[in-house]
C-alpha cells in the first residue's frame, strides 16, 4: 500500500469539474510530480492533499489514515508555496522556528533543528536576515527549510521554481533532487513545466481536464506516451493521424493522407479502418540528401522549408511531397561549424519502426 493514496477523488466548482475521479498512489520516498496545463486540476488536487480544500467525493489516505476530518494544521504534510509565503515580519530564524513553535518543541531541540534545516538548504548563518534582504533563490530555500524543519511525512511543492529565472531554476532543480535524495522525504511536486517534471521526478502523473492521462516514469512518458495529449504536452512531436491500414505481428500501419504509409512497432491491435495516431519525436527523424543511406523503412521525400539554429541542435521543418510538415531535430555534434541543409534543399527523411509510437487514445 502506498504512503499517500488518492482514492477516486472528485472536486467540482459549480458546473466545472476540476478534479475528476482521480486515483493514484504515491510511494514513500518518491519524487512524484503532478504535471499539466493550467486549469488541469493539479493545484486543486494539491490543495486537497494539504487540506485547504475538501473533495466532493473520494478519499485521501495518508499512511493508512483518512485525512478527511483533519484540518491543514493537523496534517503531517507541509507545503512550499509558489510565492514562498515567508512571514515578512520575521527573520529567517523566526520563519523556520514557526512550525516548531506551533508544535511546542523545546527550545534547545528547536535551535538544533533550525540550524540543521538551514544547513540542509545551504543557508547556515542567515538566521537573522529578513525575507526582504534575501534573493529569490534564498527565499525559496527558506521556504523549503521552514517546511522541512519538522520532518513532515510528505512535502507538497506548488510550482516552487516558477518565479526564478532560467539559470537559477536549473540550479535549484539539481539542489531539489539532491535534497530529496538526502532527506528521503516524499515530494509531491506540481508544475506545468514538462522539462522540469522530466528532470526531477521518479514518476509523473500527467493531468488534463481533471483526469490523469498517464502515470509513468519520465523516460516512459516521453518515449511511450499513451495519448495524443501526453505526446503533445511532453516535449514536441510529429503527430501523424490517419486510418489504420493493418495491424499484425507487432506492427501497426496507418495511412497518413499528406505523408504516406507509416509503420511502427506496437503491441496495440486497432481495427483496420479505424482512426489511428502515431507520435514521432523530431530527434528520431533522420535527414539526408536524396539517395543517402538512412536507417528506417518509413521514408519520405521533402523540401526544407525553414530551420531554427539553436546552437547545440538545429530544428528543421521539412515539407513532405504530399504536404505534411515534419519536424526533425539534428544534433550539431560534428566538429567545426555545423550546418547540414539550407532552405529549399531537397532532402529525404526517414525513421525506424521503433522510433514511432502508436497512441492508444
Amino acid at each position, binding site marked *: 500500500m502506498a504512503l499517500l493514496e488518492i482514492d477516486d477523488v472528485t472536486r467540482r466548482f459549480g458546473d466545472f469539474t476540476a478534479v475528476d475521479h482521480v486515483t493514484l498512489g504515491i510511494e514513500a520516498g518518491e519524487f512524484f510530480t503532478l504535471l499539466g496545463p493550467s486549469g488541469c486540476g493539479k493545484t486543486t488536487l494539491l490543495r486537497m492533499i494539504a487540506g485547504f480544500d475538501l473533495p466532493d467525493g473520494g478519499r485521501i489516505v495518508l499512511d493508512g489514515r483518512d485525512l478527511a476530518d483533519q484540518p491543514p*494544521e493537523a496534517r503531517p504534510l507541509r507545503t512550499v508555496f509558489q510565492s514562498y*509565503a515567508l512571514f515578512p515580519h520575521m527573520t529567517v530564524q523566526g520563519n523556520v522556528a514557526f512550525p516548531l513553535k506551533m508544535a511546542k518543541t523545546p527550545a534547545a531541540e528547536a535551535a538544533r533543528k533550525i540550524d540543521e534545516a538551514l544547513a540542509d538548504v545551504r543557508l547556515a548563518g542567515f538566521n*537573522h536576515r529578513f525575507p526582504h534582504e534575501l534573493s529569490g533563490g534564498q527565499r525559496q530555500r527558506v521556504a523549503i527549510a521552514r517546511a522541512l524543519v519538522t520532518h513532515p511525512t510528505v512535502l507538497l511543492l506548488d510550482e516552487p521554481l516558477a518565479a526564478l529565472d532560467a539559470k537559477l531554476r536549473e540550479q535549484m532543480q539539481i539542489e531539489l533532487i539532491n535534497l530529496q535524495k538526502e532527506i528521503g522525504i516524499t515530494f509531491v511536486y506540481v508544475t506545468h513545466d514538462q522539462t522540469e517534471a522530466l528532470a526531477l521526478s521518479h514518476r509523473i502523473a500527467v493531468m488534463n481536464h481533471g483526469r490523469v492521462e498517464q502515470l509513468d516514469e519520465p523516460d516512459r512518458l516521453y518515449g511511450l506516451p499513451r495519448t495524443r495529449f501526453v505526446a503533445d504536452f511532453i516535449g514536441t512531436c510529429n503527430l501523424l493521424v490517419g486510418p489504420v491500414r493493418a495491424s499484425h505481428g507487432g506492427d501497426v500501419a496507418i495511412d497518413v493522407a499528406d505523408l504516406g504509409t507509416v509503420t511502427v512497432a506496437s503491441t496495440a491491435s486497432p481495427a483496420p479502418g479505424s482512426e489511428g495516431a502515431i507520435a514521432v519525436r523530431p530527434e528520431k527523424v533522420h535527414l539526408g540528401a536524396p539517395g543517402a543511406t538512412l536507417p528506417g523503412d518509413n521514408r519520405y521525400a521533402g523540401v526544407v522549408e525553414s530551420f531554427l539554429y539553436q546552437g547545440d541542435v538545429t530544428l528543421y521543418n521539412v515539407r513532405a511531397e504530399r504536404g505534411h510538415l515534419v519536424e526533425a531535430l539534428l544534433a550539431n555534434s560534428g566538429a567545426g561549424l555545423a550546418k547540414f541543409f539550407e532552405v529549399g534543399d531537397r532532402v529525404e527523411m526517414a525513421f525506424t519502426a521503433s522510433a514511432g509510437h502508436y497512441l492508444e487514445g
Partner: protein
Amino acid sequence: MTTLRHGFGKWITSGPPLVFLVAFFAVPTLIMVLASFRTPGEFGGLAPLRNEDGSLDLTLESYVRFATEPLYWQIFVKSFWYALVTTLACLVLAYPVASLIAQSDRRWRSLLLLLVILPFWSNFLIRIYAWMIILGPNAALARAVNGVLGAFGAEPVPLLFSAFAVLVCLVYVHLPFMVLPLYANLEKHDRTLLDAAQDLGANAWQRFWRITFPLSLPGVYAGAALVFIPAFGIFAIPDILGGPNDSLIGNVIKQQFLDSRDWPFGSVLSIVLTLLALALAGLAAWIGKRGVARLASGHA
C-alpha cells in the same frame, strides 16, 4: 534652467499648504507659548506685554501654579485614562469590523466603508445630543437597565451625565478613526501567509496572533493615535453628557479661556497637553518598534 523650473514647481505645489501651516499652526503655537509666560489681565485676557517702566512682563507664575496645584495634574491623569479606555474599546470594536470589510467581497467594500463614515454626514454636536436622548432617563435603554436593577432590588442608576455616558460617546465618535486605518492595513494582507501558517500547524488564534495582528500593527498605531490624541483633549462630550465629576482636561482649558479668562494658565495647560500627547505617541512608537523586533527575531 530645469533645476530652477523644477524648484519653482515644487514651491508652487508645496508653498500654499506651507504658508497655511505657518500662519495657522506655527504662529498660534508661538503666541500660545508666549502667552503662557505673561500675566493675566485685570478683566481677563492678557496684561500689557511691557510694564510701565518699559521692561517685559514675563513670568513663570502660571507654570508654578500648575506644578503646585495637584488638582490639574489629577485631571490630566483622569483624561489619560478616559482616552486610553476609549482607544482600547475602539480597537477591540473596530478590529473585527475592519477585518470583516477587508475580507468581504470587493463589490461590497465601498458600501461598507460608506456606512462607517456615514455618521460624519451629520453634525458632531447633533450626534452628541442624540446620545442625550438615547441615554435619557425616560428612554427605553434606561428603563430596561433600571428595570433589571430594580428586579434585583438595586437602586436605579442614571445613565446620562455619567462617566459611562462620556465613554460610550467617546467610543462612538472615534470608532471610524480606528476602523479606517485598520481596514487600509488589513486589506493589503496576503492571504497565502495565513494558508502557510495553517499549513505549518497554526490554529485560528495562532494565525491571528502571530501573523495577522503583528502585520497590522502599523494600522493599529495609526488608529490609536487618531483616537487617543483627540480623545485626550476633548471637551464637548464631557460638557454635554458628563456629570460634575467628569470634567476632563479639555473642559478645564476651555474654562480657563472662556470662563475664568486666565489665558496664561490656559496656555500652560494646552502646552502640557500637547507635549504629553507627543510624548505618549513617541513612547507608543518606540514600544511598537521593540515589539515588532521581538516578534521578528522569533522570540516573542
